[in-house]
């Protein structure tokens, strides 16, 4: 066996080892590296009241309610399996809307409402022109100038 074949085998074995270690590390991080938790993970008292956390989910259709003070909004975040009511006082990103993704920083209140300090909008991987026929009804075309 030539020296370069030995090196090739050694390098390939080492590569497999590195790859395996990476896969193991990634799968061990599966829960820890998540950027947010979804309603099903925190529903039913699984999240401690007052513990800072991040909640992600879709804003349920027809759930956004603006409160009388003009700043506070309430809506329901859902992941299809569970729902959590969210309360937030402040300005939301432009892309925040019903049937659209959002991520909220905040904590659970004792009454089961998630009180958010900050809200980010999360969009999906689809891009299309505004005049597409199969556009969902709740998505309006942006105003053109």
């Amino acid at each position, binding site marked *: 066996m030539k020296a*370069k074949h030995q*090196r*090739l085998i050694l*390098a390939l074995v*080492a*590569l497999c080892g*590195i*790859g395996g*270690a*990476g896969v193991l590390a*990634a799968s061990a*991080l*599966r829960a820890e*590296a*998540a*950027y*947010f*938790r*979804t309603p099903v993970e925190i529903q039913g008292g699984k999240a401690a009241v007052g513990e800072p956390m991040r909640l*992600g989910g879709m804003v349920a259709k027809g759930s956004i309610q603006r409160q009388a003070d003009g700043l506070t909004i309430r809506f329901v975040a859902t992941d299809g399996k569970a729902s959590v009511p969210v309360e937030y006082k402040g300005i*939301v*990103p*432009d*892309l*925040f809307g019903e049937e659209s993704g959002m*991520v909220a920083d905040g904590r659970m209140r004792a009454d089961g409402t998630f009180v958010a300090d900050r*809200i*980010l*909008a*999360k*969009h*999906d*991987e*689809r*891009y*299309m*022109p*505004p*005049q*597409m026929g199969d*556009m969902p009804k709740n*998505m309006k*075309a*942006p105003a053109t100038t």
Partner: protein
Amino acid sequence: MHAYANPTRFLQIAKPLTPWLLGAGLLLVLGGAWAGLAMVPGDYKQGETARILYVHVPSAWLGMGGWTSLAIAGLIQLVWRHPLSGIAARAIAVPGMLFTALCLATGSIWGRPTWGTWWEWDGRMTSMLVLLFLYAGFIALTSGDDGQRQGGSLSRGAAIYALVGAINIPIINRSVVWWNSLHQGPSITLGGSSIDRALLWPLGLTVLGFSLLFGAIVLMRMRRIIADNRVAARLRRLADDEGI
């Protein structure tokens, strides 16, 4: 393959190829940018903001593709010790880091109006930042060594570093699938594209154009490294002849 690993043979091909790659790359990037900015409609949801994807996506592709090629060069260096592989790895590192930085910068600029934040520590962004640091580490590791004396080849440590760093590439790619993230899932997969055809074609132009530009930059840098090595070797010979 061995024939092209010879620096002289490589120069014969690289020299005439460089201007073609550069010219075609510039044309495609300019055409794609024009098409992406002026010809196609905005996105149904994000409006004009989504047009930054025509720079963001090619940057991400080249940042990750750059490290993939760098790791392959590291493997060839380790196993076959071709003199050109180390030169190629050195040449790739700087443009690779540049495009990774461009990807992070455009992503940040895009994130502010759409998500509402410049930066979040989600899986995609964090792993991409790690790639930037990997590039910085590789450049630091290879710029202080005695590469000119070794004809540009990598030290064993640098080659192993390139291979080990490659583990981050599938992690970046899968980060939005394995973990909940703020970044959306992949738009373009083997199964198709969730970017509508009307918005997709300028992306093809800019991805191809930036890739050709990347190739041209790498060839130019490789030629420069070879030229530097030859000058250094000649100076050494002169010094030896004069007995200094």
